[in-house]
């Protein structure tokens, strides 16, 4: 049994209270909507890709604390990164959240994002943490909207049911 306190750490509570890069972008080059129909979490993500690097990024939405903090920390982590680096991070975050990636053994670039590693023991909350990353993946691939429940989604992780 995971200790949920380990999940609701101060960093996460702080990003939930004061989300970074929260708002809209003027004329983004890429954007996408993320939706989890099971709990109603909804996120819109916009970014500006300049020379294949993320020059600006912002998100808005209604969601649980885990999802909001994950989105906030994601925007901080990928801002200034190249598309390739961002995609690598998406893969690593997903691996960490689902437990497929052993962060103790395999080298990775997750850094502070490791605070979310606790979700892997809370299967019903994995999707909350992944949704923003899911949405970033869709935006980078010019998919207008994505859902945690769409089968064709490359990030689809069929776990839990709210």
């Amino acid at each position, binding site marked *: *049994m995971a*200790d*949920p*306190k380990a*999940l*609701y750490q101060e960093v996460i*509570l702080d990003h*939930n209270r004061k989300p970074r890069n929260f708002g809209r972008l003027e004329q983004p080059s890429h954007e996408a909507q993320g939706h989890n129909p*099971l*709990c*109603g*979490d909804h996120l819109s993500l916009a970014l500006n890709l300049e020379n294949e690097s993320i020059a600006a990024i912002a998100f808005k939405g*209604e*969601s*649980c*604390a*885990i999802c909001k903090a994950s989105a906030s920390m994601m925007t901080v982590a990928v801002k200034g990164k190249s598309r390739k680096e961002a995609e690598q991070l998406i893969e690593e975050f997903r691996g960490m959240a689902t437990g497929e990636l052993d962060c103790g053994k395999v080298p990775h670039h997750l850094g502070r994002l490791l605070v979310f590693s606790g979700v892997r023991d*809370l299967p*019903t*909350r994995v999707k*909350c943490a992944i949704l923003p990353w899911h949405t970033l993946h869709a935006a980078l691939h010019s998919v207008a909207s994505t859902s945690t429940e769409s089968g064709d989604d490359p990030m689809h992780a069929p776990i839990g049911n*709210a």
Partner: protein
Amino acid sequence: MSAVRTDVKAPAFDVERIRGDFPILKLEIGGKPLVYLDNAASSQMPQPVIDRLVRYQTTQHANIHRAVHTLSEVATAEYEEARRKLARFINAREEREVIFTSGTTDSINLVMHGFGRKFIGAGDEIILSTLEHHSNIVPWQMLAEEKGAKIRVAPIDDAGELQSGEYEALFNPRTKFVAVTHVSNALGTITPVRQMIAHARARGVPVMVDGAQAAPHLTVDVQDLDCDFYAFSGHKLCGPTGIGILYGKAATLERMQPFKGGGDMILSVTFEKTTYNTIPHKFEAGTPPIAAAIGLGAAVDYLSAIGMDAIAAHERHLLEYATAAFSRMAGVRIVGTAANKAAVLSFVVAGVHPHDVGTLLNQYGVAVRTGHHCAQPVMQRFGLPATSRASFAFYNTIAEIDALVDGIRNVQKILA
């Protein structure tokens, strides 16, 4: 001789003694005593029911209705005895009106296939209510799509009460069926089913009641209700999973077509023609969940020994206490405030998503449900994506509600 004694009363409702019957309630979750408030999703099983399952499995098991050997006869007798117990529990006129299914969902699908597909056609109308669980919506939508029939929905008001006037206004000569819940799983509303059934029957329209949330909390009398069908699940009634009941009036069941084909539901089979068995067997194809049926029989014995009225009274006390405590908490809003409610308390905490409420309450050992409760139309009606829901059983205590309230205060401290 002495006068009538007035000092001998029925034993008072002794919740601590009752809790002693439920081994799972002794568990700790993360070092905290389990406070199980997710009874609307599934209830826990008392030792006498567990013992009954063990006794069946260790000394009575064989297939039923098939062989002449002793064990098969014992198993058949016990299975049919369970049917009698269930018939008594809901006051069915006859045992053959009680069909064993795998649960409420299965019961509703049986009615849809057995009755709906035979008697509902293009242009016909089926009345549901906003309060329905998805399992009492989706089968009817499938039927409507197949037949070109239409779904009409009786609305609720801001308290979550079903609007009788608007329900009655939905009737017209095309109305062919009503499927309505007795108690809302998402809000706890007890609907005025008795009057709703009377209104429908006066117009020759059959009614199916989804009793999944009513059977565990209220005395159900299907003859008094006068419904054509009544569906409920064993696992919400201190029984096992994989078993449920469909009550149907004998005359209505006789007119229906079978839902599933197979063994046990036939009298004779040739490749030219099959003659179906009589009710209830016509609707029990294949080997049924025999152990689960017998376990459910033991569960209703257990509940009846405590008394459904005593259970309802204790749960009413819990609901009133919890409602008053929640009303005093700033930032907490109860969703569903019908005057007549069963032991369900749906709520939202300002500024905190229900998922976070559920995950954090679990930290204090408190198990609640969060989400849309398989009743998305109810959530849409209140403009909410989800709520948290505490649902009580007769083995819950005032101290457990205090634990819930303390837990919510802590959630607010952490997140709000």
